[in-house]
């Protein structure tokens, strides 16, 4: 659906095909694409207009750096402006006397309750003692949901069912927090469909009572043009201190983030990345900018890799790679580690430049292929894995039968593996070492 902005700009400048200074005509033609890309990413129309005007001002007459093409030069400016617009990543302000209160607000279905639990869990692991307060008495079973989540992560939840008015629940929640010497109180408030006066009045009442250090607006990354109005209304009436963008693990470009940041001026503090309890990340403007521009997200991938890869194992593996004594057993281990990072196609999408190629890959076929490789290697003895040359016709037949494949497939795997070994030896003699990608894919 979305062609990446960098590709589009490249083709615009291909037709112009010259270097030097960026002329007004060049820039306007490029900015048309920028405008479209931002609108497709759901950045608000007015915000886009202002943004494009700013980029235009900077771009016209700018010298194209020697190392860049004109397209790259424009991308660079757009990227820098985006990062500037998205602002710094900011930490939570927890400097008040405990308990510090964090209040979550937002529309229905934006993910407040889940985020409350994720936040509590994260803060506890940094040494805090959080208490969750269930102040959403409107949505059926919202209180139960928070209670269940609290039980799962073993963090206490203050709940009083759905009858008392939310401000009273909050008041008693705070008292309990002080009695139990909690350092953080997280308030899960009701989301509504409309931004209606009654809801706002309730939020204002809770705010006056609890005096929160942080009021975070939880918003869905998939929100469209509406994002501006939502953020504006909440900011005017309750006064926000930060934004949290949820469901960022989908393929929404997240343009809403730019809009909301631009109209409120408050920083984006966290991103919600999955349904799992640890699915919360600190916001990095440069990464979101890359994503909005469709430039891939290499850093997130590398971080993800680091999170699942066993450090010692990786070090050992690297040593083996350098000594070119990498065997089939190592290959198997590495394949399994990669699998832990998620589906192959989702990984490929994060690599700049091959986002499109990844979409044409059939994830079923890729995963099936991986499973076959695993089966073949698992059917070998340890000795065979260490020295694949042992595998003669009879052994190959046994391995094929054991893994439910054919001798041809076993042969294909072996020749692939030998090629890999050769490449590694070459890399070794070429003194280029195993780079980041080599480590990741064992290629």
């Amino acid at each position, binding site marked *: *659906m979305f062609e990446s902005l960098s590709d589009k700009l490249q083709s615009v400048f291909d037709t112009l095909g010259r270097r030097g200074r960026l002329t007004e005509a060049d820039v306007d033609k490029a900015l048309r694409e920028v405008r*479209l890309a931002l*609108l*497709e*990413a*759901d950045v*608000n*129309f007015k915000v886009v207009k202002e943004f494009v005007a700013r980029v235009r001002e900077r771009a016209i007459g700018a010298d194209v750096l020697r190392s860049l093409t004109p397209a790259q030069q424009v991308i660079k400016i757009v990227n820098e402006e985006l990062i500037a617009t998205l602002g710094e990543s900011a930490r939570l302000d927890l400097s008040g006397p405990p308990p510090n209160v964090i209040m979550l607000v937002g*529309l*229905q*279905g*934006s*993910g407040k309750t889940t985020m409350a639990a994720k936040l509590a869990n994260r803060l506890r692991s940094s040494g805090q003692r959080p208490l969750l307060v269930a102040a959403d008495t*409107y*949505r*059926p*079973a*919202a209180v*139960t*949901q*928070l*209670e*269940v*989540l609290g039980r*799962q992560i073993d963090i206490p939840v203050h709940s009083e069912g*759905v*009858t008392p008015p939310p401000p009273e629940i909050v008041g008693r929640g705070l008292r309990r927090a002080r009695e139990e010497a909690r350092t953080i109180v997280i308030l899960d408030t009701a989301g*509504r*469909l*409309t*931004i209606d006066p009654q809801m706002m009045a309730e939020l204002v009442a809770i705010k006056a009572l609890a005096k929160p250090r942080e009021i975070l607006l939880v918003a*869905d990354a*998939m*929100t*469209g*043009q*509406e*994002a501006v*109005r*939502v953020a504006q209304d909440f900011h005017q009436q309750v006064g926000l201190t930060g934004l949290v963008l949820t*469901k960022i*693990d*989908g*393929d*929404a*470009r997240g*343009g*809403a983030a730019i809009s909301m940041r631009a109209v409120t001026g408050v920083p984006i503090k966290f991103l919600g990345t999955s*349904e799992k309890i640890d699915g919360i990340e600190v916001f990095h403007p440069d990464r979101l900018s890359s994503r909005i521009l469709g430039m891939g997200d290499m850093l997130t991938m590398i971080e993800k890799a680091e999170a699942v890869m066993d450090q010692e194992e990786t070090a050992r593996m690297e040593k083996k790679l350098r000594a070119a004594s990498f065997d089939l057993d190592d290959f198997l281990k590495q394949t399994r580690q990669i699998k832990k990072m998620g*589906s192959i*196609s*989702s990984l490929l999408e994060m690599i700049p430049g091959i986002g499109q190629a990844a979409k044409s890959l059939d*994830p079923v076929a890729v995963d099936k292929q991986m499973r076959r490789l695993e089966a073949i290697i698992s059917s070998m003895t340890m000795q065979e894995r260490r020295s694949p040359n042992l595998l003669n016709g009879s052994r190959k037949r046994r391995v094929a039968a054991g893994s439910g494949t054919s001798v041809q497939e076993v042969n294909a795997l072996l020749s692939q593996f030998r090629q890999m070994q050769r490449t590694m030896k070459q890399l070794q003699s070429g003194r280029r070492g195993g780079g980041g990608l080599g480590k990741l894919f064992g290629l």
Partner: protein
Amino acid sequence: MRTQGLGFARGRRYNSPRTPRGLAPGGHLLFSPCCLEDVLVLSRFRRATVATEDQEKLDQSLEKTRRGVLGRIGALFQGNEIEDDLWEGLEEALIMGDVGVETSLKLVEATRTRVRTQGVKRVSDAYQILKEEMVRILRGDAPPFDLDNRHRLLNIGLIVGVNGSGKTTSIGKLAHYYRRQGRRVTIAAGDTFRAAAIDQLKIWGQRAGVSVIAHAPGADPGAVVYDAIRASQESRDADILLIDTAGRLHTNFNLMKEMEKIRNVAQRQVHKAPHEVLLVLDATTGQNAITQAQKFGASVSVSGVILTKLDSTAKGGVVLAIADQLGVPVRFVGTGEKITDLAEFDPWVFVDALLDANA
């Protein structure tokens, strides 16, 4: 994990006249009796005034939208002469309404061409042409809605969508909607993942007066659906079964596979099931909704959209893009938080309400 037998027993007791309504299995008070009375009284009251109220409801909820950005389109057409400004303003307003760049340009172009070729001079006529073009896109050429076929023994509707789009709420409203028409409805609690999703669905089921077939949290949704179909055919004698599913992002490969499995289970049990696959879409969603419809469509062939949360200032304009680019029609709109806040989708009403500043 499977508590098949228990699930049945629960469901039956749940609806039996001996157990006072408002009591969950095991006697937990699900909501206070006063609230329950309200619900019952309201639903009785509403049954009588249903037809006019649907219209009013939609009008009301779109009122805000109308006054918002898209309302400006109506204002744009208040001028006397057709000028270039009009087209530019139109394009801008459509994009601001989440209609998307591609479909907005297409709409403006189509209107403009017809205005030129038909020699239209009056602004109000141009306005009418725009509405016709929008309705044409919304109507598309989709087959008629097929969840309420009275000749079929059991109609099955599969409800899918991303997290937080309003699936469970929509199912409660749909169940109520068909109950009101005298149909026998059951609900399968296929969201076994999200904390308290089953509780939420049971509360809705109780409000709508239909039985909910559920297993324990964490159970296999395919098994829940299997049991729900059996129960619908046998003990419940239902003719409409609505299947709730866990919210899933369309980028999650494994969860999309799980959803296909649910579909397959239904397919094996009942001829041509599921008869409708409805994608629940939040009206505040932007262009990502197109990708959602595409991915869900590729996986379980989505046959229609339920547009929810239309009572906020949200425009829901993206359904135009979806109808235009994927040919998937909107079937229902959710207009509020109450159980009666669901209306059949009427493209003329939608477009009128969206554009008509003076309606």
